[in-house]
């Protein structure tokens, strides 16, 4: 039996909204410790890793590990009916359940229950090593969203270069080019922390970064980690309970 109640149901709704454009179908991997999602986009150049620890839920019971295959768009449709302050209770049988039951409870008077049909989904679980990155940038999530959104007007590919002066986001396009430099700052309102061992410069598809920023409502800050020739990690921490991490392969120019 899997049963878990999330008091702030809007958190789960925001997670699904953040990943639904990248991932069509995915498994909710439920275990004693956590609920996790790992899935790649259809082109396999980006990866989403979501983790919600058991402590994020007010009641949590998972008798045995289970994978619940969902279509994110269908899940999103159901979550549209979630009230702003509603809690969500998930329920599923242990033995290959056909559906996931979700109870939306708002206050004392309203209880809505929905059943989402589950799917058999074959997924490739990648082993992601916990390696240190040469550059780590922590900045306001909404500021990162604004930068990505603004630069999209100019072109498709964004160069993120982390150097001594700060982090530079550059785009070159048909109508012109643009640079946005973000410097380290200790101001509480716009705190930017840059940890750098070596300068790093990588190119990324802006459209993907734009989809990543749909997770902005989940966290105040975003953490961007880069090392040469490896995927960038764009992490949105969900308080101390978990995270949504996006990995994106850099664009490497062929000789």
């Amino acid at each position, binding site marked *: 039996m899997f049963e878990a109640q999330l008091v702030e149901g809007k958190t789960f709704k925001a997670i699904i909204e953040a990943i*639904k*454009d*990248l991932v*069509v*179908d995915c*498994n909710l991997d439920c275990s004693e410790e956590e609920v996790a999602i790992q899935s*790649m*986009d*259809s*082109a*396999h*150049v*980006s*990866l989403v890793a979501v983790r919600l620890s058991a402590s994020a839920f007010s009641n949590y019971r998972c008798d045995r590990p*289970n*994978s*619940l*295959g969902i*279509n*994110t*768009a*269908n899940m*999103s*449709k159901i979550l549209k009916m979630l009230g702003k302050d509603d809690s969500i209770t998930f329920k599923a049988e242990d*033995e*290959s359940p*056909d559906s996931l039951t979700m109870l939306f409870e708002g206050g004392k008077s309203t209880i809505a229950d929905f059943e989402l*049909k*589950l*799917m*058999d*989904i*074959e*997924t*490739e*679980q*990648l*082993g*992601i*090593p916990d390696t240190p990155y040469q550059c780590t940038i922590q900045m306001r999530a909404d500021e990162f969203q604004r930068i990505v959104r603004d630069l999209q007007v100019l072109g*498709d590919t964004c160069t993120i270069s982390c150097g001594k002066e700060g982090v530079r986001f550059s785009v070159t396009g048909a109508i012109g080019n643009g640079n946005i430099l973000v410097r380290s700052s200790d101001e509480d309102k716009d705190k930017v922390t840059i940890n750098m061992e070596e300068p790093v410069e990588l*190119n990324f*598809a802006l*459209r*993907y970064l734009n*989809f990543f920023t749909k997770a902005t409502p989940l966290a105040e800050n975003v953490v961007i980690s880069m090392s040469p020739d*490896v*995927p960038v990690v764009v992490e949105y921490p969900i308080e101390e309970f978990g995270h949504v991490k996006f*990995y994106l*392969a*850099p*664009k*490497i*120019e*062929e000789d």
Partner: protein
Amino acid sequence: MSDASKNNKKWIVAMMLDVPGIDCNTSIGKIVKLRDPNTNENRDYGLMAATIGGNNNNNNQDKQCNKIVEFQSLPADFSSFIVGRHIVKDGNIYVVNRIDPLFFYLSTQSVDDGQQESWQPFDQNLENSKLPREVCEAIPEKQMAHICSTFSNDDVCYLKFNVEKTLKWLQKKQERLFESLIIQDQRNRKAKGIKYASFNNNKTGVTGGSMSANFNLPPQASRLVAVTSSSEDKNSSAAELSNNTKAIKTESIQIMCNYLNQDWSKKFIEYLGCTMEVISTTNPTNKAAGVSNNVVSNAVIQQNIDDDISSKKIAEAKKKTIAETRTMGNKRLAKVSTKGMKSMSSFFGAAVKTKKAKH
């Protein structure tokens, strides 16, 4: 094009003519079951990959778009064919005929003017039509303008299904088909010694070359009218030709109705100013026989054309029993160029396949 490996597999051998929009070097990628726009019953169709806006710059700007083809069988008095090193024991010839995917779209739309939908972007419009993904991928955006009203805002083209435009489009199709049938009929008549003149008199009647049974007009086909060869039998032959032309026109309407459901057939016939008797005058299976050398039947290859592909499709259908829903974002993301980007699995550890067991 051929498919074979297993003993019980069926060969399809297609001799590709120059058909607009189809690359002759393309083979049928897969066989899929789609609902017949006319009967709404499941039928086997072929999917052919084709490139729209094809050009030689390799910047992923060309859109890959499926072409949907149907299979028509031509009964022939042969017992076998030699295909490469194989002997195929099948007495039929199959014709691969491209189908306009808008016919599938039409079968999902109401003929009632009052039930038109609101303005929607192209992707949303197709999504709401609940058509299978294979069909959606075969419909280019600009082709929808034939049957939808359009307006653009912020680089997004919005569409609304338009019955009036649809009927005009169907009429144009019927007129083209009529011309094609006339040209085919002309060949038969020429053999009987009746001369034709084209609208532009410097062209001879036979300009189409050999015609396929799929009614595709050859390039630069002449618009033809029939005239008699001598003055003395002018009246009788003119009357005969007039009747024949009328019959051919009827046939062209009937063939069009073969790709429309009952409601659309009725609406279309009314639009043309005809009565429903038009589609009841001829046995549908022999519609083309009267106007073509080839006896084209709409018999569908229901046999296992490609057992591997079919069984795989069935297995996939069982695996995913829920209709797959994609967001607009998914579709936009699919269009993003990933050139120069490596797969995630090339960066991270070996992939472990996990599968949820379901009984």
